[in-house]
């Protein structure tokens, strides 16, 4: 009996160790878990690419609305008024009138404050800080200036150097909010007959849907034409060869690519509207397709039952200000569709 109890006790201990991971992990004597060393900071990185992308998108919107010059001027003006007030230029009983004169529409003091000898050099300093963090646009300079004044950095050289160093060390998310590169890509399903599918996406979630031969599918009695998801990784090796397209003729250029790849009507329509909306305004673009192996790594979806053809057209767009000369020609070659086909035409913008 004692032996039986002893063996059962050994058995129970092993059982507990297996079902309760925390128990196992804390039990160093079992040798199943080694505590890690204390937290260490990751190596320094480069955030410049994120700020340039953000600046370009905001600038494009203001430019398209014909507000860019006016916005730059007014931001410069507001910063000048802030600095002028900060250095005591608007103190005393006349504060309210002085403030109105600077900040208001066509205020009487506005222009003179900009050229005030105590204010002008400060504006230049903030402009210089701004240009190391973003592209050189005044609509960001006001933000940097206000950040500095609110947090007590002041107008000394040491204060501004510290502020610049602080902002430079920030992540994209901390410095400019959560404006990320939008990498959304759609999936289209073409079974030969009505088929229930399990689509596992890169984040390991699974969508259950009923796909129809006409390319539509149903989820909970709602009909859709494409399933959007996010790409698995955001790091990649840019393709080396591609085509230069004219930004002033974007719609026609995209149509040509869609036709070369034999995209169906819905796919083509979605493709045109998505990229026309998502691409930042640019005179030219370098456009290419990722090789099949890279596309497979970036997309990372799985479908059950597996399709006969899995087509991944993963685009790479890079906005360009000048048209480079290429000594080759690039073709968008369609992948044949056969049997039950799934198509993915997503992509990324390198900006």
């Amino acid at each position, binding site marked *: 009996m004692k032996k039986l109890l002893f*063996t059962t006790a050994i*058995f129970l201990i092993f*059982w507990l160790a297996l*079902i309760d991971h925390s128990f196992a992990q804390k039990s160093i004597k079992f040798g199943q878990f080694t505590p890690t060393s204390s937290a260490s900071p*990751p*190596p*320094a*990185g480069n955030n410049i690419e994120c700020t340039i992308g953000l600046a370009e998108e*905001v600038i494009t*919107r203001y430019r398209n609305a014909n*507000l860019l010059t*006016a916005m730059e*001027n*007014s*931001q410069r*003006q*507001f910063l000048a*008024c*802030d600095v002028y*007030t*900060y250095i005591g230029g608007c103190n005393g009983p006349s504060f*309210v009138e002085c403030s109105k004169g*600077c*900040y208001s*529409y066509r205020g009487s003091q*506005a222009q003179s404050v900009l050229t005030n000898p105590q204010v002008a050099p400060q504006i230049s300093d903030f402009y210089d800080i701004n240009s190391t963090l973003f592209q050189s646009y005044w*609509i960001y300079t*006001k*933000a*940097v200036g*206000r*950040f500095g004044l*609110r*947090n*007590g*950095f002041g107008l000394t050289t040491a204060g501004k150097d*510290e502020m610049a160093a*602080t902002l430079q*060390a*920030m*992540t*994209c*998310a901390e410095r*400019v*909010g*959560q*404006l*990320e*590169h*939008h990498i959304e890509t759609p999936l289209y399903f073409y079974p030969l007959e009505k088929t229930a599918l399990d689509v596992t*996406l890169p*984040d390991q*979630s*699974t969508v259950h849907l009923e796909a129809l031969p006409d390319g539509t599918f149903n989820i*909970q009695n*709602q009909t*859709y034409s494409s399933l*959007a*998801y996010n790409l698995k990784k*955001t790091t990649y090796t840019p393709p080396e060869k591609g085509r230069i397209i004219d930004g002033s003729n974007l719609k026609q250029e995209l149509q040509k690519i869609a036709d070369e790849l034999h995209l169906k009507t819905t796919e083509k329509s979605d493709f045109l509207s998505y990229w026309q909306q998502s691409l930042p305004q640019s005179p030219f673009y370098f456009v290419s397709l990722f090789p099949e192996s890279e596309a497979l790594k970036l997309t990372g979806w799985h479908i059950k039952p597996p399709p006969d053809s899995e087509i991944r057209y993963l685009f790479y767009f890079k906005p360009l200000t000048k048209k480079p000369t290429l000594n080759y020609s690039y073709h968008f070659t369609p992948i044949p569709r056969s049997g039950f086909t799934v198509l993915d035409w997503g992509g990324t913008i390198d900006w």
Partner: protein
Amino acid sequence: MPEKLTQYLKRLKAFVRNHQKLSIALTGLFLLLLIILSKSTNTSNNLTNQNNNLPTTNTTSPNTSQTPPDQNTIYFAKNIIKNLDIPPTVELYTADAQGNNIKQVGKIHAQAKNIKPLAINTYLYIGDLGFLDRGAAIYRFDSTNNAATKIYTASSGYQIESYLPTPNHQSLIIWEETQGNASLGQSRIIYQDLTTPTNKKILLEEPLSDQTKYPLFYSDATKKIYLDSYSVNRKGKNRGLFTLSLLGALNSVLPVNDYSTQPILSKDGRRIAYTSYNPDTRVKLPAPPVPNEIFRESVRNPNQIKVLDLTTGQTSLLAENLNGLIFDNLLFLPDGNSLIYRTLQIEANRTTTPLSYQLLDISTKKSTLYSRNTNGLFVTAWSGGSSLFAVRSDLIDNLGSAAGGNSPILKSTYLFDPATQIFTKILVDDNIQLIAVQ
């Protein structure tokens, strides 16, 4: 081999020899358990990916089946032009809870911030903006005739930073700071009765400091104003959370570094939720190599989510990750029993990558996947039975504000259905500000 172990093995052999059937049965049971456990362990490993917050394979829809149809109105403003070359104008719009029936309801011909709807045609805003966007007055705006009436003037020598209407809309809690100054001077929190203008009380007055307090929200459940604080001397925000009664009694709720970001209040005013930092984490963003504390570790690494019951004082840890996952963008569901939050991964190159939105059940502390799509999106409010997501546009006002007095300017707004993971675009595109959903 140790003697004891040898003896034990001998005994075990003898036992097995003498009790063969029992030994076979026990071994069979043991193997069966191993098989069952290994299957369940594999499943959870596929889901977790070293992530203590478990997204499951099923998306979850918050249980709103018992709630009546949403009668909320979405209030937003468009084309807010802060441009000294043309007269400033703010266009006011409303839409129903589904983002339909968009109507322009009025125009404010002035620079304005902190626009808040009181009733369907009545708004308040801070006007006569100046230094650091502080204002000289609070106006009531009647959108039926675009008429603005000054209802409060900043105290002499002060400018208005922000304000809160009390839930009955009969009073304002106003935050003022010494005019034209950022780090020297005074800060005041004032109670102003709107029905009796002479009924004005200074609830709190203090010198500008490393813990300058400002009102976040008012809880009808506790009848107290909740104050966050910031430093005017480069020590950053979230320097301590306090309560302030309408009689001026000040008490501490959370000391500095006990929370990472500004808390949010549940709709019934009974709970706050906030992120916080466990320094025992294995992966973190270090404080930058500068003397100031603006981006100190406890602010950069919100790896916990907590909820505090304001009526009992009890705090619960709802989620924690010590492997480089941080949380932000908290939003209470209307019933106050669940939270939406976003997860981000700290990367090796000192950036962060948004991963997903999760739905957290406060009573069970379990998280389930709410939305896979995080690119550029943040969740703003609750409308029409769904969460309201948006993509940020111009970020200028956010970067410069100490107390978040301005709402972010949005590029696109979506209603989100977690059951289908479908985002439906609503309202209009570009440069709108979401003022309220109520």
